[in-house]
């Protein structure tokens, strides 16, 4: 006798309940315990919440909680094939780009790669001190034989951050121009930002094969694209109304206004978004080593799996070093943009 029996009796659903396959659903552990145990005295304090499982006890035809999860799973698996047909070719270029970038970063000899990166840092920051710091860090990483792993991580971050900017900035611009689009997009961005990073991997594993680079590429991009979209939208909306009015009064077209006024004035905010995006890609690329993303994350994972304390800690610190390098370089670039347009 279950607690909610009277409910179904009053509603006149008893027949429906009993006609349901009460015994045919596999019994849960709780069911087994109940069937073997003795009926206890029940007080009002023990009144269970009318959850699916509690109601199912009273009425065998009612759904169980596990039906929800299996339903979601079934639904996803049913969609999977159709989704694959669309997504697979669409995302295939991502695999190629990632493979290409990984090949490029690994096959370039270190004595070319390090000066090349130093040059990039110089053009981004125009600071010799920062270039020195980056070179010392890279040499330090290479010295403890983490160079290859660090380059793999860097290659993935470069590709993913670049794609984030490529898609994120136009989305942000579109959002800044339409309040309706902003209303629709913001909940999606909120969801992408709050979803635990591991959860991104679950549906992707079912969609693509784990050996494909695009699997982790998509996970990283979805996770890291949020700040650049948000800050582009914000930056353009924050552009001084007086300047916009002036641009209108000179007869600027929408396009002239966008590229000549709005984007340049929003650039400090957009750059702040790019900085955040790069840092979030780095966070995700470590987690993505669970689904075969190469790089420093693999070593961290090895440290956890095999309890190799040293390997895990050293590669963890190497990730911190990479994070500092990326952060400092993008911040230096941001500071240069800011200095150029003090009001």
């Amino acid at each position, binding site marked *: 006798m279950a607690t909610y029996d009277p409910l179904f009796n009053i509603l006149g659903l008893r027949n429906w309940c009993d006609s349901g396959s009460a015994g045919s659903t596999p019994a849960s552990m709780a069911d087994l315990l109940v069937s073997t145990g003795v009926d206890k005295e029940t007080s009002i304090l023990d009144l269970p919440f009318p959850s699916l499982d509690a109601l199912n006890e009273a009425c065998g035809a009612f759904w169980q909680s596990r039906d929800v999860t299996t339903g979601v799973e079934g639904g996803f698996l049913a969609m999977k094939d159709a989704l694959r047909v669309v997504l697979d070719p669409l995302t295939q270029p991502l695999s190629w780009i990632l493979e290409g970038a990984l090949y490029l970063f690994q096959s370039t000899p270190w004595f070319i790669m390090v000066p090349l990166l130093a040059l990039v840092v110089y053009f981004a920051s125009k600071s010799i001190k920062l270039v020195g710091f980056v070179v010392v860090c890279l040499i330090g990483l290479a010295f403890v034989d983490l160079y290859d792993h660090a380059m793999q991580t860097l290659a993935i971050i470069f590709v993913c951050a670049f794609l984030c900017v490529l898609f994120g900035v136009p989305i942000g611009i579109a959002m800044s121009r339409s309040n309706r689009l902003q209303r629709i997009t913001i909940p999606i961005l909120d969801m992408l930002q709050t979803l635990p990073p591991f959860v991104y991997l679950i549906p992707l594993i079912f969609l693509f094969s784990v050996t494909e680079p695009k699997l982790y590429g998509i996970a990283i991009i979805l996770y890291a694209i949020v700040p650049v979209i948000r800050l582009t939208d914000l930056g353009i909306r924050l552009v*001084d109304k*007086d*300047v916009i*009015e*002036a641009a*209108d*009064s*000179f*007869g*600027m*077209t929408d396009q*002239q206004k966008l590229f*000549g*006024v709005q984007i*340049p*004035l929003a*650039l400090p905010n957009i750059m702040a978004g790019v900085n955040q995006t790069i840092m979030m890609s780095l966070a995700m690329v470590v987690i993505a080593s669970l689904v075969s993303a190469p790089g420093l994350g693999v070593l961290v994972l090895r440290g956890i799996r095999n309890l190799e304390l040293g390997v895990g800690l050293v590669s963890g610190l190497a990730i911190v070093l990479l994070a500092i390098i990326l952060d400092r370089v993008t911040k230096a670039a941001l500071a240069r943009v800011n200095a*150029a*347009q*003090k*009001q």
Partner: protein
Amino acid sequence: MSDKVQVSIRNLYKIFGTNPQEALRYVLGGMSKADLLKQHGHVLGLKDINVDIKEGEITVIMGLSGSGKSTLIRHLNRLIEPTSGEVFVDGDNVLDYGEDKLRELRRQVMSMVFQKFALLPHRTVAENAGTTLGVRGVAKMDYLKEADKWLDRVGLRGFGNHYPHQLSGGMQQRVGIARALTSNSPIMLMDEAFSALDPLIRTDMQDLLLELQKELHKTIVFITHDLDEALKLADHLVILKDGFVVQQGEPQHILLHPNDPYIEDFVSDINRARVLRVRSIMAPLTKGLVPTDTHGEINIDDTLESMIAKSGGDTSYTYLVTRDGNPVGTLDMSSLVLALVPRVASEEGARQY
């Protein structure tokens, strides 16, 4: 200076709110601004404005904050759309313009100077000054040359490669003026252009504007809340209050014959000796006879202040007034002293506005 009317505003109404057309019917039915706000939640911005702006003149629109002057100037290039009315520029109704023609008007015919300068912080001074040409598709090489010419003209030689944030407020507004001049448009709209500057710089800028105007003869619409500035610059003065025109006309005339207590209160604070000129108070020659017992010749455009200095304060003097060397009237110093006293200055209650 010709008498040709270049911009003409006819029966212009602007109502801010959710349903301005319905509110317009109440206003046309005689409802006041306060009642409209209280009963229908709509703000009456402009009410039945009729102003003719003559070619080559400085028309000053003056009013306190909230009087609708900035709203009015934005109707000329349609940064704000009116609720009803017409704005003619060179005979064409601007409100009939489509997007392309409107853009053409803003690019070729009207340029604007802003209170907060509104320069582009990421572009150099010369690039800023050339923006108005750059927008039209003029190549950078060419517009920088033109911009440099105008930067020279407003006293910013050698600052072309600076960025706006490196300049002081007064210099930034010079860039703003150079930007408007570079466009070579016949009409210049100046929205409280000097209000954000400190008093000394403001005087400098007013002098600069008058000097430029002597040479360029643009049609200038100037917005200000400062009566001294208005009287100094205006060929034609329009005084706005609560969105309608209280009085308009020649500034000297308004000063001597205010038709509203609001304006009387305004003008009673003015240093009249500096603003009034001989022409406003002289007596014309009687039957063309040139008197011979005068104490000297004076120009018709001299200010009363300079006359007081010239006479040494002696009110018994009489001067012969000349225009371009020809005698046109006489000035009695005692009438000058009378003209310095505002008509209602001593009256209690004039300040209730």
